[in-house]
């Protein structure tokens, strides 16, 4: 199924930009993702901590314990795209790196309510999105585009839990082929340069990955918001 998705995506991009070419753009971009890694659930958390939904259900408080909230991770995103535009149709290939910079750590209570558990979630990933869609130019000065496609995403999700009686950590590395939707806008500063923003949504998880007795899926689903500066030239 993943191969079929990949092939459909590649064919779509080639179809979109085939025939005599037009404008090429190279655009580095940087931004953030408000929520990284989805639920970050795993088999061990379900069995030993009685937490089915990972970070969504890990927070517990009470009993006089000095807990601290475990917030959804926020990540920074950096990437670069190569785009081809012709007759309002564009195709784009890029590479993005996502690195968690905050959230994902704190203290909670074990299921029996008798001890404090230190918790840490982290995830990094990179993805190679291939997208195509419609790009509309207004008055030769602004451009808005909307597209969809697929990506190859690869990354590592890690977790660790420690208390007086518990000590567990897991690391899961794998890939997925997420679906991608994006929207963006550009200000054309002159014929060669533009500045803009992009919102990209990825939706996809890896297959189940094992690490010792623990197992989990890496969730690449999430919104990425980036600001970009692009260089354009014709071929």
């Amino acid at each position, binding site marked *: 199924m993943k191969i079929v998705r990949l092939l459909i995506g590649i064919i779509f991009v080639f179809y979109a930009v085939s025939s005599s070419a037009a404008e090429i753009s190279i655009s580095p971009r940087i931004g953030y993702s408000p929520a990284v890694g989805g639920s970050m659930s795993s088999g061990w958390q379900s069995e030993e901590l009685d937490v089915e939904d990972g970070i*969504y259900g890990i*927070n*517990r408080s009470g009993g006089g314990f000095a*807990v601290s909230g475990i917030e959804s991770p926020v990540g920074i995103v950096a990437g670069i795209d190569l785009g081809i535009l012709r007759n309002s149709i564009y195709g784009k290939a890029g590479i993005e790196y996502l690195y968690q910079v905050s959230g994902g750590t704190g203290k909670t209570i074990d299921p029996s309510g008798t001890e404090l558990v230190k918790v840490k979630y982290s995830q990094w990933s990179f993805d190679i999105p291939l997208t195509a869609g419609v790009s509309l130019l207004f008055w030769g000065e602004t451009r808005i585009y909307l597209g969809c496609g697929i990506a190859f995403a690869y990354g590592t999700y890690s977790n660790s839990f420690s208390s007086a009686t518990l000590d567990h950590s897991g690391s899961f590395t794998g890939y997925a082929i997420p679906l991608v939707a994006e929207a963006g806008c550009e200000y054309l500063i002159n014929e060669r340069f533009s500045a803009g*923003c992009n919102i990209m949504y990825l939706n996809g998880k890896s297959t189940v990955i094992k690490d010792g007795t623990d197992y989990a899926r890496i969730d690449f689903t999430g*919104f990425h918001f980036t600001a970009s500066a692009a260089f354009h030239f014709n071929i």
Partner: protein
Amino acid sequence: MKRIISILLLFTANILYAEDKFSAGVTAGYQYDVGMISEQTGLQGKVQQNISAGFVLKLDMSRLFLRTGVEYSYPFQKGKISYSSAGSVERTAVSFIEVPVYTGVNLVIRDFGAFYMGGGGSYIFGSGNVKTASGNKKINEQLFGYGIIAGVQSEIYSNASLLFEWEYMSARTSPVASTAGTYKDYSIDYSGQRFRFGIIYHFNRD
């Protein structure tokens, strides 16, 4: 504190160009699956849906915008859990006041209006309640969540525009209710997508 400083820096950077257009208006909005019940393993039932009403304040600069305001979001359909293997939550009625703070690129489209897209976040002042087997638990939470916003303004008069806006933000409270044990373990998730429709008036427009 870092969040507040970051937002203030963004504000300051924008205010340097404050001679540009200022707009204010009203919006009505909708959010599906407030509390993200559908995302929770072991819960089945009706998801909560909220409608909202609010004020928009927007500063449009030549190429940047600053968007803030205040909005009240109220459940027109409460979340009702018909089956749960994960605890004793029976109903959610999550309401909240949201103060969005966003900045980004503002694209003026001649003879149409504008398109904008940016980043930032929202302050949430949560209220409402969660009903569990042991009774109603009131929600009284304040938190901040990072988010993304995009919107379209379509001019209907020279100084007024229709506005359609999409926002995604992520924020979850500390536990507010107990579903099974002696501790609190049920958090309220304000994350999700909001859709807003409204009308705004442009002051000091040429």
